[in-house]
Structures are given as C-alpha cells and as structure tokens.
C-alpha cells in the first residue's frame, strides 16, 4: 500500500513494510513542512495513526525544512501512538530539521535513528 500526496512544497508517501516478521508503517516526508501545509500533513499522519500501527517510522531524509507547526504535528502523532501502545521513530533528519528537534528537545522524546533499518530493528 502506498500513496503520494503533494501538499504544495510537501510530499508524503506511505508504505507498509516488515522487519523480521514485524510489520511497520514507513512514512517518507519530502520537501518543506511549514504552517502552510501542516493541516494536510496532520491529516495524512492522523490517517496512519488511526490504522493503529505498532511501529510508525517517519523518514525525514528528504525533508529540507520543518517549522514549529510541523514539529507539533509530529509531537501529536507521538502522543497518540503512545496512548494506543504504538511507537514513533524518526529517521535521518537533515541539518535544519535536526536543529529544531534538538532545540525543542523533541529528539529526547521521540527516538531518532540513522536509517530505516535501524529504526525498524528498534
């Protein structure tokens, strides 16, 4: 299962995958995420959360920029997954994205991995 959704500067694709027999959902966010496309990003992520994945991995390697609105969308996903017993992991943030994660200490709340494989292995 996959789809692409162009949200102005932002593209989100979702794939269902497996690692050592364990299913996980991989979301790749590409482009620039800011207040002008946060509503759409939130809606797309909410759809995935509603599928109740045990592990949701968001690959940020193609995301050039993220502002605080988009960060809040990720924090919301983290909170929702936490409540339903799931786990959120982030992968390979670029410098600008890593900066806002570090500054707000969101990277202490949500685990950040260097690759999808590492994130999937937990």
């Amino acid at each position, binding site marked *: 299962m996959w789809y692409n959704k162009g949200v102005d*500067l932002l593209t989100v694709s979702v794939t269902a995958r497996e690692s050592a027999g364990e299913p996980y959902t991989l979301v790749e966010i590409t482009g*620039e995420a*800011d*207040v*002008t496309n946060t509503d759409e990003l939130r809606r797309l992520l909410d759809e995935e959360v509603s599928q109740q994945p045990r592990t949701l991995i968001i690959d940020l390697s193609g995301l050039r*920029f993220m*502002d*605080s*609105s988009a*960060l*809040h969308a990720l*924090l*919301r996903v983290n*909170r929702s997954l936490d409540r339903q017993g799931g786990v959120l992991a982030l992968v390979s943030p670029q*410098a*600008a994205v890593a*900066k*806002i994660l570090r*500054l*707000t*200490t*969101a990277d202490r*709340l949500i685990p950040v991995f260097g690759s999808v494989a590492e994130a999937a292995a937990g």
Partner: protein
Amino acid sequence: MARDGNTAQREPADEGALTRQPESRPDGDGAVPAAPAPERDDSMSYTYTTDLGAIRAVVQRCAIEAGLTEARAIDLVLAVSEVAANTVKHAKSPGRLTIWYDTREIVCQIHDEGVITDPLAGRRQPSLDALGGHGLWIVNQVCDQVELQSDETGTTIRLHMNRPAATPGHDPVA
C-alpha cells in the same frame, strides 16, 4: 513573491536610538520595542502572503552572502520562517521582509498588521506537551538579538545575527 527592489529613500538610520535587547535576559522582563524601521538604500524588501518557501530561500541566500556559517544560516532561516508563519496564522494582510547587513551583523525585519499583545511572547520555553507556542521561543533562542514592537497598527520584529569577524586584510562587504 514580489520583490520591490531597493527602497528609494534613505532616512538616517538612527540605530543609536534603538533600544537593544540583551542577548539573554534571565529575568525575562520582555522584549524591548524596536524603533521604527530604518529604510536603507542597501536593504532588500519582499512582500509575502503564504509563500514561505520563497522567503526562506531569500534569507538563506543573504545569510550565506553575509558570511554566516551554514549552521547560523539555518538558524536565521528558521527564525524568519517562524515569524513569517505568524503572519500567515494571525495577520489578515501580507507581511513584509526587509534584509540588510553591515560589517557587524545581518538584520531581517518582518512587519505585518498582526498584533502581539503578550509582551513576554517567546521569552518562556513552552512545554513540549503544549503543542503550540514554540515559534517565538525558537526565534529568541537562535538569534543574537530580537527586537519586537507591536501596537494596534501592526508588529515589527527585527532579528539580528552577528557576522563572523572580518579577517585582517579582507574588506568586508558593507
């Protein structure tokens, strides 16, 4: 994005009259109002509505041109984007970004018709649970200096980033 080009008039930029906000103020007694914008003939102005990607590209280019390191350029881009995001969220009119730099610093000024009523806006760190209110706090964290002036006619926020010290024998771009 409309690029207005260089502003035609130059008024004496009386920067000495500006009250500058210290880099850190642990007692957090609020932002110091910015003086009215100096219109400089070496500044560049851009009007934006929702095209924040274009605004970020402009700031990135100017920051590198002014000699900021990549990390500091990222900081300035983030700060300007957060302030411009407030225009998109709260102001009912376009915003205006003006950029200039001298030997000492690069300044990005953002003006819109929105009103910030909290004089301590961005001075306190919001909780991650708050799911909001991080924008101006981030701005205050990454910039060397932030000036904020807001009244019923609108809000002007000026973001200052120090330029790296000029190397001897190198004539910095003024």
